């Protein structure tokens, strides 16, 4: 039996659409709640990021509880950057007890990237070990082998980077994540469908669902900034040129067009099992993208 609505859909052969919301820096949750209400019926699940880019914010678990309260389907993003194995297991138990069962297991960005660069980086576990830990907890013990009073059950995901400039070691890691129990993958930003096609030729041998990450770019400047500063991201030159061709103030509109076109092509060509739309701070435009991609009406 599926743990969640999202897990059920994962195995339904529907084209899946997920998106993500970055929680606020502060205790005022009104904007996040607004975005949750705006998006919850338009997508299959909403990721809540975990101090994305190592910038301290309202917690992912808190955001997921809100998604739940508002009738949406949350995906808990969990990084290994800030919590050791005790804290990670405890948060997983809390999440499960409150009906949050979709978990995206990530290693996490280095603290150097964020706004607390003097903090102690934890990384007691990595993403593969976190996935494995969840499977162990599901079997009824914690990872020290002690029995749990009530075992949790999760639907676990991970990330993969099909556009990495050095792909082989990333694929080795991908396979380790599959063996460790990942059921679905949300990829890092895809800008060149060629790399997604190549990746899917390889990945389709595994029984996992792949959701292509779509980052909505608001301008050519933002694209160049990401190329220079955001770990791993490589925005294709063709897309930068296209964004640059947009008139003044039309960058975001162009970005929406580009994202919608990528999504449409992925769906039409059946390249993978769904998309994960990342609007990075522009959560409000996600419905426009879905509409432009002719995905409105999803989920059915």
């Amino acid at each position: 039996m599926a743990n969640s609505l999202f897990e059920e859909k994962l195995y339904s052969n529907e084209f899946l659409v997920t998106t993500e919301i970055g929680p606020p820096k502060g205790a005022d949750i009104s904007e996040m709640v607004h975005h949750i209400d705006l998006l919850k019926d338009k997508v299959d699940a909403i990721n809540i990021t975990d101090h994305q880019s190592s910038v301290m914010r309202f917690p992912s678990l808190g955001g997921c509880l809100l998604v739940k309260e508002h009738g949406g389907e949350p995906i808990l993003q969990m990084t290994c950057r800030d919590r050791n194995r005790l804290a990670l297991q405890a948060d997983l138990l809390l999440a499960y007890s409150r009906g949050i069962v979709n978990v995206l297991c990530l290693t996490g960005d280095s603290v150097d990237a964020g706004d607390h660069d003097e903090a102690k980086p934890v990384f007691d576990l990595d993403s593969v070990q976190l996935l494995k830990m969840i499977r162990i907890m599901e079997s009824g013990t914690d990872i020290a082998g002690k029995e749990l009073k009530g075992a949790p059950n999760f639907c676990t995901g991970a990330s993969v980077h099909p556009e990495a400039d050095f792909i082989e070691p990333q694929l080795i890691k991908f396979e380790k994540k599959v063996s460790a129990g990942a059921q679905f993958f949300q990829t890092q930003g895809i800008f060149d469908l060629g790399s997604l096609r190549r990746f899917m030729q390889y990945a389709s041998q595994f029984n996992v669902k792949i959701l292509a990450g779509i980052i909505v770019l608001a301008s050519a400047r933002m694209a160049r900034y990401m190329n220079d500063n955001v770990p791993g991201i490589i925005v294709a030159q063709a897309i930068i040129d296209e964004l640059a061709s947009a008139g003044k103030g039309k960058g975001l509109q162009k970005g929406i067009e580009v994202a919608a076109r990528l999504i449409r092509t992925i769906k039409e060509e059946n390249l993978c099992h769904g998309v994960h739309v990342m609007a990075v701070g522009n959560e409000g435009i996600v419905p426009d993208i879905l509409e432009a991609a002719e995905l409105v009406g999803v989920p059915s």
Partner: protein
Amino acid sequence: MIVAEQKPLDEISRMIASYERVLILGCGTCMTVCDAGGEREVSFLHNALRVAQSKIGNGIHIFWEYTLKRQCDPEFLELIVERVAEVDAVLSLGCGIGVQAVAERFPELPSLPGVNTSFMGMTRETGVWDERCAACGDCRLEDTAGICPITRCIKGILNGPCAGTKNGKCEANKDMDCAWLLVYERLEKLAQLERMRRYYPPRNFRTIPRPRRIISKTSVDPGEEYG
């Protein structure tokens, strides 16, 4: 070897301000090799402190300089017993171990750190040192082609690269090679990539209950009780 950097002069000046007679104590081993606290640095620092003192006029110090072959060895510390009897503080240019060895041997005397001890590493080229070992107590270099991800990957992760690597560099520092790409490349050359495909469980941090002690298996007398 241990690599350190000398502290800024004004920090050292502030540290010694309340002591009149100060012994500047160098170390002839690691601190000499990394140019942080050997005989030469002791003499430079001595001059610099004298110049600083005459400029600011804050406190009149009398300095002595001496460099031991090693500060971390009690045997060598015996050589300065007489000198130490005449001073108010020792400014050690040994690594953190040296500073503490001096403190333990001379309990009545302040032992002040003149360097910031940074890491265990090796000389890359003249004047450049790179960290290589984290002393994790559980060496796994056999599986990582002789390249340590615990030390050289900023996250110290065990199951392969994160997704942040770009142009072969680490996400945290564009000048630093991604350790996991180096491991991959070397394992491939050695035809041992299967080692990277293996799952490595979480580290056992009990291998580093601080502080650690090693007792030689050949030594008859293990010395005093631990603790």
